[in-house]
């Protein structure tokens, strides 16, 4: 195949990536350096105001003061995304391992079960958690019925319920990549380890985990990136009392009518995610050497 044909074959994919990914990305970065239009949208002149707003705000009397609000919101979002990733890893690894150990027939059924939630809209699934967790919901009802509690536990509208919603939504993204790497492990390696008197812990630590790592890393990025920008779970399950970066961005494009700041926030999210990607691919390369 000549170089011309190769280009022709790649062209559609490049076009899609260019038009739907690279162009909007540059548009967002461009918008973040513009001035907000009073009714949404942006106008000239170009400024750094949007980035200044991360740490400084105009006080009610128009003086510029230091304000940690946005920094706090961004930190909370990163912290929740990291926590989601760790919990997904801890829960996802044994699940993937369990599926790998089954007969091919059962593997298929279990894999189907893992992807089953994708058949229902995320909004509906998240809303179901409200029905389960609320004061008069299923969880509190069951506990009260069993006589364990008399007053309902505050299960909904806190960081815990946000975390639960995020883990629930993104767990399959961790299980599937780990499964695909574990599936390729040669079972004889494990047998050999046992023959050499390795205990279960040693087998996991020295055989399974090193081989599962690429899958776990792929899963971690697949979970971390969308968890950082998610606004459905935080809004519905968090009760809107604590802002996360996803809701903050959405707010800037709607009620706050501050598109440049919204664009600046999205740029920050992109930079954080890209940094994570770069660190990851560096480490993968180092391990290969």
């Amino acid at each position, binding site marked *: 195949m000549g170089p011309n044909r190769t280009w022709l074959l790649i062209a559609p994919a490049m076009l899609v990536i260019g038009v739907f990914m690279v162009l909007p990305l540059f548009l967002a970065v461009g918008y973040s350096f513009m001035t907000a239009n009073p009714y949404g949208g942006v106008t000239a002149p170009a400024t750094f105001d949007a980035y200044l707003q991360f740490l400084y705000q105009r006080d*009610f009397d128009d003086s510029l003061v230091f304000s940690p609000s946005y920094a706090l919101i961004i930190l909370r979002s990163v912290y929740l995304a990291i926590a989601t990733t760790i919990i997904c890893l801890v829960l996802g690894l044994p699940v993937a391992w369990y599926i790998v150990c089954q007969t091919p027939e059962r593997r298929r059924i279990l894999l189907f079960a893992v992807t089953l939630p994708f058949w229902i809209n995320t909004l509906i699934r998240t809303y179901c958690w409200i029905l389960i967790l609320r004061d008069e919901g299923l969880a509190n009802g069951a506990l009260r019925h069993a006589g364990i509690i008399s007053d309902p536990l505050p299960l909904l509208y806190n960081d815990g319920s946000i975390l639960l919603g995020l883990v629930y939504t993104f767990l399959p993204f961790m299980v599937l990549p780990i499964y695909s790497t574990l599936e390729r492990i040669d079972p004889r390696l494990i047998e050999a380890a046992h023959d050499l008197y390795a205990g279960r812990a040693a087998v996991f630590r020295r055989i399974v985990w090193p081989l599962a790592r690429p899958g776990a890393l792929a899963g971690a990025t697949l979970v971390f990136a969308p968890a950082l920008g998610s606004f459905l779970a935080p809004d519905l399950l968090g009760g809107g009392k604590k802002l996360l970066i996803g809701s903050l961005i959405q707010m800037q494009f709607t009620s*706050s009518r501050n598109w440049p700041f919204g664009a600046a926030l999205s740029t920050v999210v992109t930079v954080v995610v890209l940094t994570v990607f770069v660190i990851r691919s560096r480490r993968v390369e180092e391990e290969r050497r």
Partner: protein
Amino acid sequence: MTKWKEGFSSLALAAAILGAITTTVLADAGELHIYNWTDYTSDEMIKKFEAETGIKVTIDTYDSNETALAKLSSGAAGYDVMIISNDFVPIFVKQKLFQEVDAGAMPNFKNVDPKWQHRPWDPDAKYTVPWVWGTTSYSVDTAVYKGPTDSLKPLFDPPAELKGKVGMFGSPTEVISLALVYLGKDQCNSNPADLKELDALLEAQKPFVKVYNSDGIVERQVAGETVMHEQWSGKALATRQQKSTIKYVYPKEGAVGWMDNVAVPTTAPNLDNAKKFLNFLMDPENIALQQKYTGYQSAIAGSNKLLAPDIGGSPEFNPPADLKITFAPSCDEKAIRAYDRIWTNLRQ
């Protein structure tokens, strides 16, 4: 075989002629393109309009005032009428996106309730006719909360027993509008002293607030998750129909009002049909169909009587005559930024 073919072609010809006739008939009466919020146009009402006038109606929708403004000011043409909130009417008029239709001189204008004939955003009814409207206050479960319900004080300065039992809207402008009514301050406020007071009020209220969310309020109230919730009149009625102890409060400080209006864009291709539609909407029988669909009040006298008595005659649909209703205008950038700051700090 040839016979069958012949028969088929003559049938096709007949169908084509018939089709041509019907389209000519429709083309004679013309078309009407409506631009409205999503899920906000009654099918029954549109069918009645089409049957009475022979005009073919097409509906296109938007999801926020800002979207509609952006679309029209970017030069989008083709809409004959559009529905728009009271706060955005002056912006559209100022940018010359609406044309004068002199609604006040239309035959059905006499049906408009006298108190809505001179609306602050269109005092002489030059541009718009009312669509539906409502008030914003709060509703409370009187089976749980036994205190006084004549003021906004229990909502913004709740008694200790309501800690974590209050719900507020998720939109900063709507929360702040009502808070400013409680404080007796101007809407769209950028006075530093007033803003500090507003900020302090919302911060002090926060421990009592369970959730800031405008969706699912009826459910939360019926399930008893929130005892008190900022609420629109129409939704408050829907809540009371499911739980009879819910009361919609008309506070002595006043309530916030909102009204959607029907206007004609400058670029409307079918001006005459647009005017027919505006006049049609001021007939109580027609706007009542719209009310049935959305569950809000109308500004046309006598339309409530055409609804089921438990809706048309409900306290939620009939605010007391002496209720002070504040319609918040669209705020300037300075106030919007200040509101944004208060709202973000509140939820940081």
